[in-house]
């Protein structure tokens, strides 16, 4: 994949499970249906005669806009999911994400306060989990979604172990 300019070179990026794309697409579909349905309200009102004077641009434009936005997001989703990567180094954990707004994060093991593994119902159905690293800084938004459950458990153990051996005070 096209590694971004801001990524450290000579690093072996691990990628999250492709199944996560399916999870995201399901979420996307639900969201899209609901939003487009809501956007159709003026159109429905006009059709039902409740609001016969609803202007065209509103009645047709709103659903069209919503649909276009969701199509655009659907186009981006596969790339966004592919863009999420992580790498374990000896002293720290690297995490990258984003296509337009790229972010590469480094979390030293010695700074990790705890590690969260969460599994939502949809993720569970696909055998996935999300990992979140917490440091003392609220700005550390280190979430790694879409990990295979086994890999998530391995990472959690691994990270906790390294965190313990390298833990520094604040």
């Amino acid at each position, binding site marked *: 994949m096209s590694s*971004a*300019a*801001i990524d*450290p070179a000579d690093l072996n990026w691990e990628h999250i499970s492709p199944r996560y794309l399916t999870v995201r697409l399901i979420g996307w579909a639900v969201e899209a249906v609901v939003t487009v349905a809501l956007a159709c309200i003026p159109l429905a009102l006009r059709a039902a005669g409740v609001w016969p004077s609803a202007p065209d641009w509103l009645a047709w434009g709103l659903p069209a806009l919503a649909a276009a936005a969701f199509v655009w997001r659907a186009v981006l989703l596969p790339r966004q999911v592919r863009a999420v990567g992580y790498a374990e180094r000896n*002293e*720290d954990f690297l995490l990258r994400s984003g296509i*337009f*707004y*790229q*972010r*590469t*994060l*480094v*979390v*030293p093991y*010695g*700074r990790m*306060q*705890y590690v969260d593994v969460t599994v939502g119902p949809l993720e569970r159905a696909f055998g996935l989990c999300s990992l979140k690293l917490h*440091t*003392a*800084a*609220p*700005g*550390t938004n*280190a979430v790694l979604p879409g990990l295979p459950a086994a890999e998530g458990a391995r990472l959690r153990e691994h990270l906790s172990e390294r*965190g*313990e*051996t390298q*833990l*520094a*005070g*604040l």
Partner: protein
Amino acid sequence: MSVPHNGEWARVHPVSPLVRGWIALAAIAFVFGRNIVEDLVGLRGGDGSESGASAPQGTVLLIGIAVLAGILLIIAVGFFLSWRFTRYQVTEEHVRVHSGIVFRQQRQARLDRVQAIDIIQPLLARLFGLAELRFEVADAGESAVRLAFLKLDDAQQLRTMILNRASGAAATDPDASGPADGDPHAGDNMLSTHGAKPAAAGAAGGRPRPGAAEAPEQPILELRPGRVVAATLLSGTTLFLLAGLACAVVITAVTGEPVTLAVMVPLLFGTVGGYWSEFSTSFNFRAAVSRDGIRVRYGLLDTRTQTVPPGRIQAVAVRQSPLWRLTGWYRVSVNVAGYGDGASSEGQARTKLLPAGTLPEVFAILALVLPEPGTDRPADVFTAGITGRGADHGFTTTPRRARWIAPLAWRRNGFTLTDTAVLVRSGALWRVLSVVPHARTQSMALEQGPLRRRFDTADLVLHSTAGPVHPRVRKIDTETVHRLFLEQAVRARDARRRDRTARWNRPAGASSAAPAVPGPANAVDPASKEFPHEQQ
């Protein structure tokens, strides 16, 4: 009542619930007082027709008094129980507080995890000679342990004792856990509220307690009221007021109708509130340094004394709002884990390390925060960071090609490195210099959006604990900032290894040695030779 030394349980001062709950009492007194007065007035008027003529006014009054007495009794019992059920204990390792009548809460915090200790005296507590002690650990939310209220002397003694034990100066237990970075359990239990009753309250008792001498202080600076008033009047609140007035004038000019008072009142309230909180929390500001860290005192009605042990300051920022350029004043604010994000006015007050100071005063404070600036010419480097622009003194700025996305600030935006810290400079109108010691770097992120990518620049965000300082190296050449990102990860790691502030006073080697009662020579030298303390 005195301070519990060897782990026995103690209670807060009996008046405490009254001092805490006086607002509720005042409200009740007000409501009932008004009713009774109205009743009396009605009685005198002899007009009994308003409320059921069958009940004579005297009976109503009696019922009112009875209800009032009942409520007061309930409150008194509540106060008594809440006092009775609140107990605290300080052992060699922990401070514990049990509280609550129906929902019991048992809370303990590790002494070696202390981030700051505050002694707070709200106005009413001051009248009673009482004080609240707050013990902060690294949890950005509420205070870890609040003891409200103790006698002022007791609070101070307790603070001294806690600091002595936390610092390792009073370590009498040879088995006491080592510095936190070598302790495998150090991180798992920073603050726990668990239900287990402490096995033996006297576990730590019986040991000879070293004389808990207050670490001697050396005053660093104090602000005169005149400075505080002037700084308040020139603060951002004034800009806000001017902007509001300008809006009103423009609206009046455009619509031809004068802006009504109803619109102006919120503006005025906001302004007065801003001025007040700024003034009252900067008033009588004094900073001092002792072996146990930086100590600041301030407050007009409510007074506070804050102690931040060495190495607990996660990041520091020197700021200057536009109007302060006229007077050459700066504000120093810090991130301390446990002080929270500084969103509330209390949080803002607590994170101020210098409300308004001149450049030499700023240096005096910076010397406390950063005893080793890590450069041969700290005065030049830090001055360049605070007021300078361009590439002087090793600053790397936004490249010229990117000046279109930072038309004013591109020469200000920049960073430089010393051996001990990163200096991040930004802001053309609101100047900010953020300093993050390498040893305090938590995590870092490189960020690049489409616009920055177009100009081949990127941002580096240094994550710090919650607080007013948000260091972000802005719009630096991608390759340069990329290198900084990788190198900084290594520097931070090495600095972390060297850092020994967890037990800041632990005597090297012998931990059971008699506690060295510190002479002034032992104290942190405030006029750190490296820092331009006396420079004018």
